C-alpha cells in the first residue's frame, strides 16, 4: 500500500494490521473506513493498493510506503503477520500489539510499542519518546516482545516496562528505564540523566556514557561482561543496584571505560 499524498491532518492507522486485512480482497480493503481528522474516509482515498491479500493474518505481509508521519496507531493490537513501513511514521506504532513483526525503515514518532505484550518492532531510524511504555494510569509498560531501534530514542524509554527487551543502537535521552519492573534495556550509545529512576526490577546495559548515577543506586561489583537475551556483551561494567527508595532490585550495567567520572564510587565497593 502506498499513501497517495501525505495527509494534512492525522490519520488513524489502527485498521492497518494483518488481522484486519487478512481474508479481504483488494477491493474490500480499499473500501475499509478509517478517520482522517474527524472525517470518515475510505482507504482508497488515502492509499493505492497493489499485490494480494492472504487469508491468514500470519501469512500477510503489509508494506506501507510514503510519508506516514501523521498516521498514528499503525499496527495497533495486531497479533500476527508482518508490516513493513518504508518511510517515516507517526505515533503509537504497534500500540498494545501481541504478536507479529513491524519494521520501520525510517524514523518513528513517540510511543513505539506502547503496552505491547509480544511480537517484534524494528525501527531502522530514530524513535521518539516513551518507547515501550504503557497507557496512562495503567502503571504497566511493555510486557513482552522485542523493540529494536537502530538510531536514537527520546526520553523515558521503557517507562513502567515489565518484560521483553528494548535494544537501542544510538543514544537514549533522560529517564531511561524509569519505573521499570522487569525486562531488559540495552543502549549501545550514551544515555541522559536519571538512568533507571525508581526501577524495581529489570536490567539496563549502557555501553556509552552516563552523566551521573542517582543517589538511590549502590555500586555492587565490577563485571567483565554480561548477557542480553543470551548474547554476550563485553565489559567491563560497573554494576549498580536499585532503586533503593523503591526497595528495588534493578541492575545497571555501565561501561567502565566510558565512565571514568564514576570511579569515585569504587570506594564503596565492599
Amino acid at each position, binding site marked *: 500500500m502506498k499513501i497517495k499524498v501525505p495527509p494534512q491532518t492525522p490519520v488513524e492507522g489502527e485498521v492497518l494490521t494483518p488481522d484486519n486485512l487478512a481474508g479481504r480482497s483488494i477491493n474490500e480493503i480499499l473500501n475499509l473506513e478509517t478517520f482522517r481528522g474527524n472525517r470518515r474516509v475510505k482507504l482508497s482515498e488515502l492509499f493505492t493498493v497493489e499485490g494480494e491479500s492472504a487469508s491468514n493474518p500470519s501469512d500477510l505481509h503489509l508494506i506501507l510506503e510514503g510519508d506516514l508521519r501523521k498516521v498514528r496507531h499503525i499496527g495497533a493490537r495486531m497479533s500476527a503477520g508482518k508490516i513493513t513501513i518504508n518511510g517515516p511514521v507517526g505515533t503509537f506504532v504497534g500500540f498494545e500489539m501481541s504478536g507479529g513483526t513491524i519494521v520501520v525503515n525510517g524514523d518513528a514518532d513517540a510511543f513505539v510499542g506502547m503496552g505491547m505484550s509480544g511480537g517484534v518492532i524494528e525501527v531502522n531510524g530514530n524513535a521518539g519518546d516513551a518507547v515501550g511504555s504503557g*497507557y*496512562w*494510569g*495503567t*502503571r504497566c509498560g511493555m510486557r513482552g516482545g522485542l523493540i529494536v531501534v537502530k538510531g536514537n530514542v527520546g526520553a523515558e524509554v521503557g517507562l513502567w516496562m515489565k518484560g521483553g527487551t528494548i535494544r537501542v543502537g544510538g543514544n537514549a535521552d533522560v529517564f531511561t528505564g524509569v519505573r521499570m519492573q522487569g525486562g531488559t534495556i540495552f543502549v549501545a550509545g550514551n544515555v541522559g540523566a536519571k538512568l533507571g529512576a525508581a526501577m524495581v526490577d529489570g536490567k539496563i546495559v549502557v555501553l556509552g556514557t552516563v552523566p551521573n548515577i542517582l543517589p538511590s543506586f549502590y555500586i555492587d561489583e565490577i563485571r567483565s561482561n554480561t548477557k542480553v537475551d543470551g548474547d554476550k556483551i563485553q565489559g567491563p561494567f560497573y554494576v549498580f543496584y536499585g532503586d533503593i527508595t523503591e526497595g528495588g532490585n534493578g541492575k545497571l550495567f555501565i561501561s567502565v571505560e566510558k565512565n571514568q567520572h564514576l570511579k569515585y564510587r569504587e570506594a564503596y565497593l565492599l
Partner: protein
Amino acid sequence: MEYLLKNGYVVDPVNKIDCERMDIAVKDGKIVESVDESKAKVIDVKNMLVMPGGVDLHSHIAGSKVNVGRLFRPEDHYKDYEVKSGVRRSGVGHSVPSVFTTGYRYAILGYTTVFEPATPPLKTLHTHDELNDIPIIDKACFPLFGNNWFVMESIRDDKLEECAAYVAWLMRTIKGYAIKVVDPGGVEAWKWGITSQDFDQEIPRFGITPRELVRGLVKVNKMLGLPHPVHLHCNQLGIPGNYKTTLKTMDAVKDLAAGDRPILHITHVQFNAYGGVDYLSLSSHADDIADYVNKNPHVTIDIGQVIFGDTTTMTADGPFEYKLFNLLRGKWANSDVEVETGAGVVPITYSRSNYVHAVMWCIGLELALLIKDPWRVFITTDHPNGGPFTEYPRVFSWLMSKKARERVLKRIPRLARVRTNLKDIDREYTFYELAISTRAATAKILGLNNKGHLGVGADADIAVYNINPKEVNPSTDYKLVRQAFSRAYLTMKDGEIIVKDGEIVAAPVGRTYWVNTRAPKDVEDVVIPEVKKRFKEYYTVEFENYCVPESYLAWSAPIQPLEPSGE
C-alpha cells in the same frame, strides 16, 4: 402527552400489586386512572414486566471525590467509551463513568432516581455542578456532618437546639437532602494522621465520642423532621472484627426510636460485618447483623455488594482509604476538607480467588437474604466501591437464584465458603421482593411519596423489562433475569420515553431534590450570626460565598420537612 402501557405484568408493592396483568395510564408526567385510548399513544408491553423506575439511595455519581476517581484513572475508561449519536453525548464508562454516561446507563437499567450519598458541604457547589450535568435521572446529595467542627462543638456543649439550627441552615444553604455521617470523628482524627477511631473513644481535641455525636445527630434529625433518617457509615469500616462496632452503633440509638419509623440507616453494611482479628481470619458476621435488624425496626440497611472485577473505592472515610492503600500499594488520593470532612480514593480489583474478596462477596448477599423484611434492606454496590452500578442485574440474579450463587461459590476459595453462611441459605427473592428492595422501599425511606410506585398521582417513572414473570423461573433462568434487567425495554421518566429497546431516545434534565428546613426563628437568629463569626476563623472562604443559590440547580425540587418528632 398521554401514554397507555397495555397488557404488562405489573409489580407495584406499595399498591400490593404482584404480577397482575394491567394497563398503566400516563398523562402530563403522572400516573393517572385512565386516558382516552384514541388520543393516547398506546404501547403494547404484553407479557413484559412493568415496575416503577428504580430508586438508588446510595451511589457515588457526582462531586469532588468522584471526579478525582475519574481524573486519576484514565486506564479505567479508555477501553469503555460511548460515541456521540443522536440525543446522546459522548463519554466514558466503567467504574467511574462521565456524567452523561452515568445518566444514560442508569436509565438503561430502568433506574430513574439516584442519590449521591456524600458531599463535603464546602464542595457542594461542585457536586451540584455535576448533578446538573447528569441527564434524565432525579437526584440529590447528602452533606457530611460526622466530623464537622460546629456539630461536634455544639453537641459537646450540649446545645442540641443550636446544632439543629446549624444543620437546618446548612441543609437549605447548600441544598442538601439528608444528614450523612461517615466514620464519625474518625476523619477528624485522620487529619492528625491517626487511622483508628473507636465508637467510644474520644475524638482528638474535641472532647466527645462518636457515640455522643451519632446520638446527637439522630436527635437533630428528628427535631428537624428530615424525610430520611441519619445515613451512617460506621467507624472501623473494612477492619476485621468490626461487626461489633456496627451492632454497638445500631444499639446506641435504639432508645431514641418512636413508633416503627426507622431513625438510622446503616449503609454498605457488607464492609462493616466482619469477624476475625485480621484479614487471614476474616469471617462473616452477617447473621448477627441480620438478627439485630430483624428484631429492631429502628434501623434499615443497604448491602454494598462486591462484584468481582476492577473498580474504584471512594469514600469520605479518608483513614480507611489510607489503610487500603497500604495494603495494595497502588494509587492513593486523599482530600481532607477543612472543618468538615475528608475523602479518599483507591482503585481495587476484587478477585474471586482472593480469600478476603470472596468473603466480602458472600457477606453482601447474606445480608440481603437473612434480613427478612425487604422494606428494610436495600440492594446497592455502594457504587463504585463494591462494583459499578451497571452490575446490578448480576446482583439481582444472585438474589433470585440459589443456582446462580452456587456457580460462583464453587469457584471461590474453600475457606471462604466455610467461614460464611451463604452456602446454607436457600431463600430466593421474588420479583415482588426485588421491586421492594430496589424501588418501593428505597423511595419510602427517602421520603419520596411520588416515587417507587405506580399508583395514581405518582411520577410516571416506569421501567419495563422484556421478561415474562409468569413464565420465567428466575431460580433456573437467572441468565434471562440478568439480561432483561441489563437493558430495559422501556424506561419512562416523568411521562417521557427515555429508553426504547435498550437505546436512549431522549435525555431531558432531571430534578435535584433538597430539603428546605428551618429551625425555630429565634434559635436561628442567634446561631447563624455565631456561625458567621466563627466562619472567618475556621474557613478560607467568605460566609457569603458558601451558599449554593437555588437558581444554580438545573431543576430545583425543594421538599418540605415532615412534622418534627421531638428530641
